[in-house]
């Protein structure tokens, strides 16, 4: 099978990039012909590991020094070239302004994507965010089978993006979403299109299991309001006097670091809650912990939670839209508490911090549950979708 994945920036380090690489690697390992295409390129090498059998290319090389030289020639030709350059550097024509990736596009880059999409005559194309799904729906009309993957809940998109989705997603051959709630939501706006739930895979299930004995709770994600660390810190404050030898380690960077630091200082938690920054070894850090906490206000499918489960960590999570309840059963792999309820989050953490046996029991169940999210299991679900769409 010939499978192409189109990413905005395959050379970056976001969660979407990682999960697409995991998919691509699993497909290549099964002998399929896989091509990852990056709309823009800002680095020499991808951050995540791509199987050597996967072809990687880009449509717009934005590395320093990679821009084409200005055309020489007659004054009129230079004038024309300057005008064309002005238009090329102008805003994109089809990508909605409310798409969070809008800023990465200009007219020239959008044209490069359209030109590439128009030339695809066979195989499968998986696009990975609204801007690319919309361009695929409009312009990849030459015979390729098109699957638009949505990593976000519909309600999270801006109104102009939602309107474009309602108009153009029905032209896609299929929409792949991550959660049950997303499946229902996207079905409602694209009634004639097939909407399939295929969760993302964790990058590996061969992980060092946690002993669940260390007095370390861990959380991870961008330091942004969405992740709710401003709720997690006060929740930890409520349990720290009962569990003074426990630590909470929060991994990630983001523009709320200063506010979170102030919250830690205000609650005098500087001996117990640590903003760990970015790590290249999250696997090792998860293996050292005994409890994973998800305090998000909203999620797609929380990959870091699945990664934590792959280390046999029990989970305490807000039952936020949309991911956690898809994966977790309250009282099986961990505890689900009402979204935004700081007291309930604290009580759930306290329950697990007090009981090593319960942590181990939930952790074992987490490891069993996460098997459904292995690269191989998820690859098989994609293959099933592709086969059902084959012309």
């Amino acid at each position, binding site marked *: 099978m010939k499978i192409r994945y189109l990413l905005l920036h395959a050379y970056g380090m976001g969660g979407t990039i990682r999960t697409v690489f995991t998919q691509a690697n699993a497909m290549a390992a099964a002998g399929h012909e896989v091509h990852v295409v990056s709309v823009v390129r800002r680095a020499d090498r991808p951050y995540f590991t791509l199987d050597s059998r996967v072809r990687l290319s880009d449509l717009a090389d934005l590395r320093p020094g990679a821009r084409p030289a200005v055309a020489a020639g007659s004054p009129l030709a230079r004038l024309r070239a300057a005008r064309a350059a002005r238009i090329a550097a102008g805003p994109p024509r089809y990508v909605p302004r409310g798409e969070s990736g809008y800023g990465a596009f200009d007219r020239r880059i959008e044209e490069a994507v359209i030109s590439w999409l128009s030339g695809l005559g066979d195989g499968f194309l998986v696009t990975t965010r609204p801007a690319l799904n919309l361009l695929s729906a409009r312009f990849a009309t030459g015979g390729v089978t098109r699957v638009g993957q949505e990593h976000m809940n519909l309600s999270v998109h801006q109104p102009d993006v939602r309107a474009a989705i309602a108009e153009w997603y029905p032209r896609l051959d299929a929409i792949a979403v991550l959660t049950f709630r997303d499946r229902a939501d996207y079905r409602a706006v694209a009634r004639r299109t097939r909407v399939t739930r295929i969760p993302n895979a964790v990058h590996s299930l061969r992980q060092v299991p946690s002993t669940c004995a260390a007095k370390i709770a861990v959380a991870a994600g961008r330091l942004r309001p969405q992740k709710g660390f401003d709720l997690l810190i006060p929740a930890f404050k409520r349990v720290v006097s009962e569990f003074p030898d426990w630590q909470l380690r929060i991994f990630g960077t983001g523009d709320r670091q200063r506010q979170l*630091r102030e919250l830690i*200082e205000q609650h*005098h938690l*500087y*001996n117990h809650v*640590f*903003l*760990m*920054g970015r790590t290249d070894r999250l696997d090792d850090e998860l293996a*050292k912990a005994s409890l994973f906490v998800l305090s998000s206000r909203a999620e797609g499918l929380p990959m870091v939670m699945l990664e934590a489960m792959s280390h046999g960590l029990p989970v305490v999570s807000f039952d936020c839209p949309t991911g956690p309840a898809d994966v977790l059963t309250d009282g099986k792999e961990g505890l689900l508490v009402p979204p935004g309820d700081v007291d309930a989050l604290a009580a759930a953490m306290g329950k697990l911090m007090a009981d090593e046996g319960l942590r181990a029991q939930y952790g074992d169940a987490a490891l069993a549950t996460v098997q459904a999210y292995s690269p191989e299991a998820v690859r098989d679900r994609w293959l099933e979708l592709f086969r059902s769409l084959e012309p």
Partner: protein
Amino acid sequence: MKAHAELAQVWPRDGRLRLIGHLHGPRPAPGPAAHPAEGPAGETELVLLVALRGAPQGGQAPGVPGASTAAGGGSAPAARPGPLRYPVTLDGREFDAWLPVADLVPARLADPVTWDLWLAPPESAGGRPRLRVGRVLDDIRNKKSIMVFPGQRVSAGTLTAVVRPYYTIKDNLSVEVRAAEPGAAR
């Protein structure tokens, strides 16, 4: 690994800096000038020694307030004082000590000053042998940017200083004192 005083908790609040932890490795033997424990057992075996970085360490500068007694609460030290000493409560290998952060603010503060912290026998010459106070036994590297503590504001006359403990790049604890930025509230 060299013997040192391993921190578990650092509490910069209420005008004090309190340090809680345990002794790691052999305890420093009292120097030749040492006499037997003077107070209740376990209270004068070690003192918290706080020394201005770059200041002479050979002995105490006579007449420096706060440096001549183990009890804290002295006024601001003069320029280039000897080390300050504070009592340490020892319970087995566990230690607990505090000092008033106002002691660390010099009379004039053009440039930031840095204090380093040790535990040492009370009468040892120049505070040697001594145990550096730090946190090196856990798995967290780069504590300087991860285990970060708030500063406390201290006003003395027209001077307002911010006293902030921090981990050095070697994960030892030091205290920085710098003039507060005008208008910066905490």
